[in-house]
């Protein structure tokens, strides 16, 4: 019974050893390792797809729960990992250290994400998050000869450790209040009695710890340097996967446990959301390095996600699910183009992108669509996500927040268009043509297709998300702004 529930996690943990062993035995060759990694992911995907619905349940003393919500995000995590592996294939000659170990770290981080998707206990949440960040600390500093990469890893480690400290301190306080770290017991304790100040403080400490993971203001300080210094595939993994894990944890905690205290956190999240959106998008305008710019833009996106979370409605949670999916395809498109282009154009400075459309129309076109989708332009994926979030915000009656969110669309469009301007209107320093490997090319086509499909046919995906959260015990009864029948 238990084994059926953790099948996906089992495959992924086995693969950490497989990739490491392959590296030691030098079998297969270095430039074939990515195929091995992809094979592991496919196996995990098959196991996930074959998990029969009746096998859903809890295990490990209820610490681990497999439900529709978790399975939806597990699927997304596997997609992210697959694209990151394609990026790593493109990037591998720039990674000097052992490649097998890199894939191993990728799988441990993925394992952490899969665990976070299924947590039902604060301690397991801590374990999952630490698994993610510890792997990412090492991956960030993987370019050992590049001082910026090492600095990024160091910075990430220090600030990340502080965040973990916040998180575990909050967990301790909550344990002191309820005598359990288990979500349902915590929920029971909150519903049944008065909540002392220490428990409230514990709650906010946990919130702060998760704020670091999703890069929300004022816990965003690590973002720009880490995004600039880390290897690009790691940045992509960080900006999509790690953020998604943080958001899932927030949803599980805020909606699964603390929904009765909605009044306590709604305004806090709303204010954080406004600050995060404004800071991220304003600071992005002046950047000159594309990865740094995307770091600030990812802060802006965290702001939108917080807006949806602050709504406290099931529409808000659906919007989060949709937005993350849209963010996944758009952001991975952008990063894949950066990885594919950076070797030839030489660096991540924005000037290097001058005249990209003349050197590679395909890469420029994909980057154009990815950026516009991030900005939220129809008929692309980001538009649907942003619209759902704004709708959820409006339905929760937070018109001031919706106003800020809507104005940020225009703000972010400005700096995304500045990149587009360089690509299409600038003259290239070096007019040589950029070659794109067929694997990268195919992945890009699939991602761009996803951007269009998500932007035009919202209903199938939205229904999928809605049905995933419908089975949650935590949705309907407590929701203050429940949808009409």
């Amino acid at each position: 019974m238990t084994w059926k529930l953790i099948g996906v996690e089992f495959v992924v943990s086995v693969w950490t050893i497989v990739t490491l062993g392959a590296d030691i035995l030098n079998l297969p060759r270095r430039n074939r390792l990515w195929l091995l990694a992809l094979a592991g992911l496919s196996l995990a995907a098959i196991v996930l797809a074959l998990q029969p619905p009746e096998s859903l349940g809890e295990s490990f003393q209820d610490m681990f729960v497999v439900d529709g919500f978790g399975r939806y995000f597990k699927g997304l995590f596997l997609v992210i990992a697959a694209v990151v592996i394609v990026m790593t294939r493109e990037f591998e000659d720039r990674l000097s250290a052992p490649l097998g170990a890199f894939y191993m770290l990728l799988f441990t981080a993925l394992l952490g994400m899969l665990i976070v998707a299924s947590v039902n206990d604060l301690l397991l949440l801590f374990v999952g998050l630490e698994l993610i960040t510890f792997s990412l600390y090492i991956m960030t500093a993987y370019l050992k000869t590049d001082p910026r990469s090492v600095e990024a890893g160091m910075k990430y480690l220090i600030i990340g450790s502080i965040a973990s400290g916040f998180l575990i301190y909050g967990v301790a306080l909550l344990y002191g209040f309820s005598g359990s770290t288990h979500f349902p017991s915590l929920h029971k304790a909150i519903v049944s009695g008065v909540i002392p100040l220490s428990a409230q403080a514990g709650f906010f400490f946990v919130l702060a710890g998760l704020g670091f993971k999703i890069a929300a203001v004022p816990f965003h300080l690590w973002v720009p340097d880490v995004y600039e210094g880390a290897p690009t595939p790691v940045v992509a993994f960080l900006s999509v996967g790690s953020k998604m894990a943080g958001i899932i944890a927030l949803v599980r905690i805020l909606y699964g446990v603390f929904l009765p205290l909605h009044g306590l956190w709604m305004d806090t999240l709303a204010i954080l959301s406004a600050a995060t959106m404004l800071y991220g998008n304003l600071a992005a305008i002046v950047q000159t390095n594309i990865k740094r710019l995307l770091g600030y833009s990812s802060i802006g996106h965290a702001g939108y996600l917080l807006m949806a979370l602050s709504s406290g409605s099931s529409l808000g949670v659906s919007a989060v699910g949709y937005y993350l999916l849209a963010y996944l395809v758009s952001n991975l498109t952008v990063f894949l183009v950066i990885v594919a282009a950076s070797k030839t154009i030489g660096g991540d400075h924005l000037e290097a992108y001058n005249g990209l459309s003349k050197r590679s129309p395909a890469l420029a076109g994909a980057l154009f669509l990815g950026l516009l989708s991030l900005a939220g332009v129809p008929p692309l994926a980001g538009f649907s996500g942003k619209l759902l979030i704004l709708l959820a915000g409006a339905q929760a009656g937070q018109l001031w927040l919706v106003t800020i969110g809507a104005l940020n669309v225009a703000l972010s469009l400005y700096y995304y268009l500045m990149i587009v301007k360089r690509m299409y209107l600038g003259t290239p320093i070096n007019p040589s043509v950029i070659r794109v490997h067929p694997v990268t090319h195919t992945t890009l086509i699939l991602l761009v297709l996803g951007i269009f499909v998500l932007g035009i046919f919202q209903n199938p995906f939205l229904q999928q998300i809605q049905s995933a959260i419908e089975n949650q015990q935590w949705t309907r009864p407590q929701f203050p702004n429940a949808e009409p029948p």
Partner: protein
Amino acid sequence: MSSPLLAIILLSPLVGALIISALPPQNLLGIRRIAVSSSALCLVCALGVILSYDTVKAGYQQQIYLPWIPSLGIGFHLGVDGISSVLVLLHGLCAFSGVLISYAITQQVKEYFIFYLTLIAGVFGVFLSIDVFFFYFFYEMAVIPMYPLIGIWGSDVKEEGVVRFSKEYATMKLTIYLTLGAVIALIGLLWLYVSSGSHTFDLIQMQQHLDNHPLAVSVQRSIFLLLLIGFGFIAPMWPFHSWSPIGHAAAPSAVSMLHAGVLMKLGSYAIIRLAIGLLPEGAKFWLPWVAGLCVMNILYGGLVAMAQKDLKLVIGYSSSSHMGYVLLGTACLTSLALDGAVLLMFAHGLMTALAFAMIGHIYDQTHTRYLPDLGGLAHQVPFIATCGVIAAMASSGLPGFANFVAETLVFVGAWDSHPVAVACGVVGLVITAVYMLRLVRGTFFGPALRSFASVRDASSPFSRLSYALLIGVLLFIGCWPRPILKIIDVSAQSIVARALRQHQPEPEPETIPVEWVKVPNP
């Protein structure tokens, strides 16, 4: 009665763009043929729509409905009423002649037509959608292609050889302004959706719901203001107009044609359709302010146009001046003035498209648009000069052109409520005559200049066809406005009646219009 006309109009440019994106970039002939045939198909269907519009039944016709996101009340709902069918025809005409004019584009032809056809589809989508979600969807979709279209194929605006502003600046300003306007309107639309409690984005259902459960007056006023400012950006209502003249000036001629001809009308159309159509109390409160602002549009735009030396800037400012008349007609809440406003959108769209096509040809041949450098071109380009004179006459509202009929209707309809604005409007017509005649004199008349000896006239039948089409329709409507006015009037009356319903139970004594423009009520 469901016919596929509207779906064809919307999909034809998109399919065209898809096919073009699959063609090799060297296949210029194929690319152009596909673009021409898809826009011609749109024009034919648009004609079919307006000819088959049933003025007895009125209301939205040719509806197509597909459920899209049922849980949020979003449906893919297309349909046209009298106003939108006229604007669809306008867009069909401008888009078709724009594609013909685009034969002058020689670099990156494939990408150009992909963006251009996407733009065409977006604008059609706005006019055809009767679901607020898709209305907004297509509205934004129409704005974004402008960025590359102006940025890549546009031209800097120069004065005496010095760049006054670059195309990069113009296109960024245009895109950001229009997006800003769009998101402001979006806030209003979301607020409307939530506060109406109707749980539907469908315009017809929303309207019914709001009729039965009207919103509080203060809420209506706030939402109306958001929509007015948001759509006022694109209309372009003074003081939100500053993107428009420079955007027009920097754009390639076919894009200026669509832009000044149709895109600006999206703003006034959205104000009529959504703001006035859904929020009668807001309309009563804010429309007098609009009447005041549009006087600024008319006079300020006109006076600035008089001072310009770049041909496109003259027409650009004149467009924002003329949109003032449209807004004036919209602001009166009489069906007569609204008829005039819609007809003026139509007439002005064709006239501006004609003017920009003409200027585009001159610029292609002489490589300058700077008025002091030009002169005597009538010797070399008699056909274009004729078109230019006709555009000038139409623009200054000479009888015989559709503009005259429309402006007269606006003035007569607005006289009762805003006599001062009408007086200013008449002054504005004199200003128009001044700058248009100045433009024509400076460009075409005078002795032939030796430097322009090699300049050629528009000789290919294709380009002549596009000029002839625009002029022909302007003259036809100008001489026989009745059929088109009948179609507009049916819808205008229902909008005005809805807006005036609640607080004015006794019917206002209608001013009897001059007999020959009187539209019989079926």
